[in-house]
């Protein structure tokens, strides 16, 4: 029936006909794909990280709290994830919104990169969507610094709902400090100076025999520019762009990175790493950190702390939550970030004294979404105190209304609540990064130069002079852009 030549086998020992058939099936199936995978009716799709996906389990407490808060019971939220790292999430969000895909309906956006999306018109103005009550709550009760990173820089309109703020904190080994003879009772609420901090760290390290006095993140990555370096210069009263007034509008801002407070901050960090041997060392500060911090990001710095080998550790609150999980709960404490100059002595208003880098995440609405009604309802439900507390309970994310932490019971709700007072202080002194449409490029200049200065490759003056040149060039460039 079938001519012989079709039966002739290929060198693979498979009948050619069936091979071609199989290959084309795989190929056709491969190219055409399967039936569409739209969301089910009444489901709002959100793009978040695996933590968000975990707490948004349809059977879980959070969904129940959302329904209790007024969300229509027909509506459920399903969370899609990708790699959890913040840069990759931003890339994924950017390419999805660029292509005007209708799903996901909601995006979890890092407060450190929400504003560029707002400027690119890839978000929805929530002033028209949310109820007056909710808008009032946000305006009056929510942490102001967090809300500022969710507004359109020029019009002031709200384009994102803060989901939770995050603050840089100084964590430490309370037990070791006590053993060395220090009374740590006030440490949770009274910031100490960096000088005292370095003395304590060196002293406790010597006394207890642990490897390091202090670890923080100083690798050449965004976290250095946005957070750890930003914190340190703020505590010295310095700033990138002349204070906190012009954080979110790029173009012709004054660049102040080459001023003395910033230089002092760098000198202090160099002293922490290399002690008085460093040619730019600051008198009176001790050597307390390993040279490896110039390669450390969050987890690298946390490793020694979790291993019990560090006295002081700068990190986000998640690190202390893990410490409690690991059984170190009794040993760790949290204190506000130390300061370099007092508030009234600072060069710029609102700086000096303790400071904490502002992190955290917002929720935004996809302008191309086909479920905007339902998604808005979800946002409304998140903007209630009960839901915020439930989020804190199940995940440990700080509520945007930070004062709520005062009334919670740590036993019931989770270890981070133990440090409510310290966290509130951090919230009051939160310093957002100057995020604008060109912040990513400016951040890269900053972390490259600062990392070079920390490593001793450049002097602080040289590094900051170079940085000032580059930042000024970028400010001038963006000002020239012709935008209607």
């Amino acid at each position, binding site marked *: 029936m079938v001519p012989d030549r079709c039966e002739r086998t290929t*060198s693979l020992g498979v009948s050619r006909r069936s091979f071609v058939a199989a290959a084309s099936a795989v190929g056709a199936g*491969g190219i055409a794909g399967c039936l569409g995978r*739209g969301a089910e009716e009444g489901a709002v799709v959100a793009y978040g990280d695996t933590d968000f996906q975990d707490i948004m389990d349809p059977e879980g407490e959070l969904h129940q709290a959302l329904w209790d808060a007024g969300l229509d019971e027909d509506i459920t939220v399903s969370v899609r994830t990708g790699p*959890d790292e913040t840069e990759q999430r931003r890339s994924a969000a950017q390419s999805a919104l660029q292509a005007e895909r209708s799903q996901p309906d909601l995006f979890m956006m890092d407060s450190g990169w929400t504003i560029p999306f707002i400027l690119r018109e890839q978000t929805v103005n929530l002033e028209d969507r949310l109820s007056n009550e909710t808008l009032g709550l946000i305006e009056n009760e929510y942490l102001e610094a967090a809300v500022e990173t969710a507004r359109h820089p020029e019009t002031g309109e709200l384009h994102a709902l803060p989901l939770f703020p995050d603050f840089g904190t100084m964590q430490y080994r309370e037990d070791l400090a006590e053993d060395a003879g220090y009374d740590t009772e006030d440490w949770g609420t009274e910031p100490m100076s960096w000088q005292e901090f370095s003395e304590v760290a060196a002293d406790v390290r010597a006394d207890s025999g642990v490897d390091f006095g202090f670890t923080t993140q100083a690798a050449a990555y965004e976290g250095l520019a946005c957070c750890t370096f930003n914190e340190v210069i703020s505590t010295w009263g310095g700033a990138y762009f002349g204070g906190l007034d012009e954080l979110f509008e790029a173009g012709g801002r004054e660049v102040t990175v080459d001023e003395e407070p910033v230089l002092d901050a760098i000198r202090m960090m160099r002293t922490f790493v290399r002690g008085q041997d460093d040619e730019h060392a600051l008198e009176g500060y001790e050597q307390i950190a390993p040279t490896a911090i110039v390669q450390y990001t969050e*987890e690298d710095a946390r490793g020694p702390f979790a291993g019990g080998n560090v006295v002081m550790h700068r990190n986000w609150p998640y690190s202390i939550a893990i410490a409690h999980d690991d059984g170190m709960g009794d040993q760790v404490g949290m204190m506000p970030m130390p300061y370099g100059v007092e508030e009234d002595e600072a060069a710029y208003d609102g700086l000096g004294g303790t400071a904490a880098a502002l992190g955290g995440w917002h929720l935004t609405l996809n302008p191309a979404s086909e479920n905007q009604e339902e998604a808005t309802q979800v946002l409304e439900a998140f903007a209630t105190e009960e839901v915020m507390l439930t989020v804190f309970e199940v995940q440990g994310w700080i509520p945007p209304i930070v004062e709520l932490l005062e009334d919670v019971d740590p036993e019931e709700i989770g270890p981070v609540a133990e440090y409510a007072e310290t966290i509130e202080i951090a919230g009051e002194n939160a310093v957002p990064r100057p995020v604008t449409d060109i912040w990513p490029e400016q951040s890269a200049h900053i972390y490259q130069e600062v990392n070079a200065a920390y490593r001793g490759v450049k002097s602080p003056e040289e590094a900051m002079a170079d940085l000032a040149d580059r930042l000024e060039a970028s400010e001038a460039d963006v000002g020239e852009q012709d935008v209607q």
Partner: protein
Amino acid sequence: MSPNDHEPTDDGADRDGSGRYRPDGGPRSRLADGGTALGRAEDAEIERGPFSRWVDRSIQNPQRVYRAMFYVAAIFFLFTTLFPFYWLLMVALTPEGQLQDIVFTPNGFNPGAFVEVFQTLPFHWYMFNSFVIATASTVLVLVVASLAGYAFGRLEFPGKTPMMLLVLLVSFFPPAAFFIPLNDLFNTPVSVLEPVMSDGTLYNTPGAMVMPISAIFMPLAIFILTTFYAQIPDGLEDAARVEGTTRLGALFRVIIPLSAPGVATAGVLTFIAVYNEFFFSFLMTDGQPENWAPILEGILGYQGQYEILFNLMAASSIIGVLPVAILVIVAQEKIVSGLTAGALKE
């Protein structure tokens, strides 16, 4: 060096029987007494150290040197290629949070990581996706590139050189250069597709990855196949044609089997490259395993926002490499099936 440099002789026979001359005529011994006392190679051995003896033996029998060099080189290459894998295995076996000072042994022992890999994420699903995409791409590339390779390698036609350069041009560009237009293209609803895909786009389908990736790896396959197809002598193809094979038939039944090493190599290289491809896969799906996300999404899924589960990444990559290793074992039989001796009777 040995004081007795000499060419090997089979039984000590030499030119004039005195033992003083090398077979090529030169003087043999440089001993102080001119070699009268110690004329022959074997007698002189007593005076040499082990190294000299080895050198002497080597010169007598070069095959041994080559064998020794062979073993040394083989062991060197084996060690350098396998040590990082071994180290990766050590990382995989180290329990989470104890990743310190790994040299030759894991820091703790946690073979459970290999099970945990599947509990944390549906990793087998990602592997399946990658496998399907890689297979589809390899088939597509091999078929299409074979046609092109035949044309470039065995046919003459105007515009051949510019067309080859045009193909090569694709490889000058980083994959990122294609991305933005492709992103728009694959997210544009096409009415034809709407019955199949609810939003009528190719996003989240294997097609969104198979097509760009095949195009990216096409130039390499075309050039490899061109090279190998061009080397088959015309005589063989003519013989087949005389016997009535069609033009296409000649390609598939004569040229390809005879170029098995080249075809198998192109296939293996393409499969591996697509299987491990990251760029388009990351951007053309939303990362869900049911949406055809490939294996890299799975491996990167073990990275939290701050914490990275290196042991699971290591374990999952070891598991992920297994299908490829199997493919290589199967395909390498083809790679080494060279031209059958005597096929060419010219």
